[in-house]
């Protein structure tokens, strides 16, 4: 990082927390609006997620009997912090200055923290529904984690580097990975949908079966923070998939003035994350919730199988590439 | 079972069990004694294939309590087996062993009319709330909601 001021701005203002907060609320609104319009409903106004966040923040915080208050307050904050730091390594207007060799693994690890926090919350709140919800959250984590990581690591395998920014650079020179590894792209999208516990995979908080799963006892600011975490991880997840498979914010041919390239890069970033969001929303609208044992069969048979096949193809292509 | 079942053929064979009357085109009503109800239903089930219990209705006609078992079968005929029980000690052998759904209706009739079904596996209170006075049976004619008792949260004022 050159000088501390631009570093601070990078971390806190522009592609950092403030932008992430606003963009997350916008994406949450867009997600609900697309789903509503697909069901021929009008849908919420653009500030609805922000209004929800403020309202829930103001609500009274109820501690269930016999619950360790401190941990119950701290857990959502841990999840929020994890997701926010994950966003710093994802390139927004060009390469992220904080990039280092292996930041892809860090981002993936930070993204899976909220699920563990959900399990902890479920177990902590001493309520039968949240306990079952917590167990389901962790079971689902084991099912989709392996294929999701494999799908996201195959671009790194082909690009030969473990840093998200360098993968984006590699794609700038050659093809985007969505054309090179289509199966990996599909598995990544399905894994992302499962990580965010959205419609086909929202088994942990299946409201018609176990009230709200781990979310049952969350009230007031805890609920607001956890909701925000899920919205943030939607942004981080779709930005990550956009960066790894759709070429991120860089354009193949260079343009003279540096600041213009930054703006175009940012616009590209927006367009690509919105494209990923459109796909995720339509998955959410088109499907119904599946049971945890069905997820087990589908998860291990098809999704894991597909990601292993993808890794195989990438190894073969690497082998040919090196000797071609 | 020679040929399709006709009301008079059914009436003929069931004459042994009690008074028969033809209520409507396809309906027969048999009035029998309480202890003969069980095997009346048995013969009707086995010989004439009445495999479905429509309902067990109970009524209080002032003098005595009446129970009517309505059964129907694939031939679309309805047989109603009626039985009369005296008011003081209304008791009946249960029919849950030959009609599983009967367990449901018997427990409800027991709550509302106080007819005891001997042999019903679990005569738990089902319909009225827990603090309902045990010996009061609301649907009997002589029961009136007396104003000062509390019926599950509502004062018993006259409707």
């Amino acid at each position: 990082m050159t000088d501390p001021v631009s570093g601070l701005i990078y971390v806190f203002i522009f592609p950092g927390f403030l932008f992430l907060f606003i963009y997350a609320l916008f994406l949450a609104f867009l997600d609900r609006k697309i789903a509503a319009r697909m069901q021929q409903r009008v849908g919420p106004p653009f500030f609805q997620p922000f209004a929800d966040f403020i309202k829930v923040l103001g609500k009274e915080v109820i501690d269930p009997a016999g619950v360790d208050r401190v941990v119950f307050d701290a857990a959502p904050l841990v999840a929020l912090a994890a997701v926010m730091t994950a966003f710093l390594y994802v390139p927004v207007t060009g390469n992220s200055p904080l990039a280092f060799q292996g930041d892809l693994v860090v981002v993936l690890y930070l993204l899976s923290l909220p699920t563990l926090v959900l399990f902890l919350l479920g177990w902590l709140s001493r309520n039968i529904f949240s306990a079952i919800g917590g167990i389901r959250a962790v079971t689902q984590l084991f099912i989709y984690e392996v294929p999701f990581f494999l799908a996201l690591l195959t671009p790194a395998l082909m690009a030969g580097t473990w840093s998200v920014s360098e993968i984006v650079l590699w794609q700038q020179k050659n093809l985007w990975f969505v054309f090179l590894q289509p199966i990996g792209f599909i598995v990544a999208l399905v894994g992302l949908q499962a990580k965010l516990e959205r419609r086909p995979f929202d088994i942990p908080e299946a409201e018609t079966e176990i009230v709200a799963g781990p979310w049952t006892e969350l009230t007031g600011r805890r609920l607001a923070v956890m909701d925000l975490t899920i919205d943030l991880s939607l942004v981080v997840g779709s930005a990550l998939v956009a960066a790894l498979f759709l070429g991120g914010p860089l354009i193949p041919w260079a343009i003279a003035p540096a600041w213009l390239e930054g703006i175009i890069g940012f616009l590209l970033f927006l367009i690509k994350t919105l494209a990923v969001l459109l796909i995720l929303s339509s998955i959410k609208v088109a499907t119904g919730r599946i049971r945890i044992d069905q997820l087990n069969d589908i998860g291990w048979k098809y999704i894991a199988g597909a990601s292993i096949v993808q890794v195989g193809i990438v190894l073969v292509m690497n082998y040919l590439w090196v000797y071609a | 079972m020679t040929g399709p079942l006709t009301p008079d053929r059914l009436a003929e064979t069931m004459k042994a069990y009690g008074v028969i009357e033809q209520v409507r085109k396809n309906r027969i009503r048999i009035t029998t004694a309480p202890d003969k109800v069980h095997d009346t239903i048995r013969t009707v089930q086995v010989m004439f294939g009445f495999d479905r219990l429509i309902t067990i209705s109970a009524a209080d006609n002032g003098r005595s309590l009446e129970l009517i078992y309505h059964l129907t079968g694939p031939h679309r005929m309805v047989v109603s087996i009626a039985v009369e029980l005296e008011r003081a000690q209304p008791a009946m052998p249960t029919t849950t062993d030959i009609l599983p759904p009967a367990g449901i209706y018997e427990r409800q009739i027991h709550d509302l009319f106080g007819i005891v079904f001997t042999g019903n596996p679990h005569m738990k209170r089902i319909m009225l709330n827990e603090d309902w006075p045990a010996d009061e049976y609301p649907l009997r004619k002589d029961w009136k909601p007396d104003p000062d008792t509390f019926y599950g949260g509502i004062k018993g004022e006259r409707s």
Partner: protein
Amino acid sequence: MSVLREMFENLLSRPITILYPKEKVPIPAAFRGRIAIADDKCIGCSKCSLVCPAQVITMVDGPRNVEFRGKNLARKKRPQVKLYKCIRCGLCERHCPAGAITLKHELSGSGTDREVVVT
């Protein structure tokens, strides 16, 4: 996945829900709304209070002479309806010989005093 095709058609078409305060839903002719009593036609026969299932119509004395089927009657009583207890079933309107009591198209509104009466 026939659902997909219809979903994307809906995405581009107008939503079907009506934003109530701005656009109003048309009220059909037979709608049973707020009760209204035409005092000039009422002959005080108290049929409506007998027929009312919720027993909210009480007859209060209201002497008046009324012209009914050519004859001139001096009626003694007229109906009074507890507005917020009325279930708007329309039986009074159906059984009133003089067509005095009808259900309008407006809603009966809401209020705290359950004994509010419409005469």
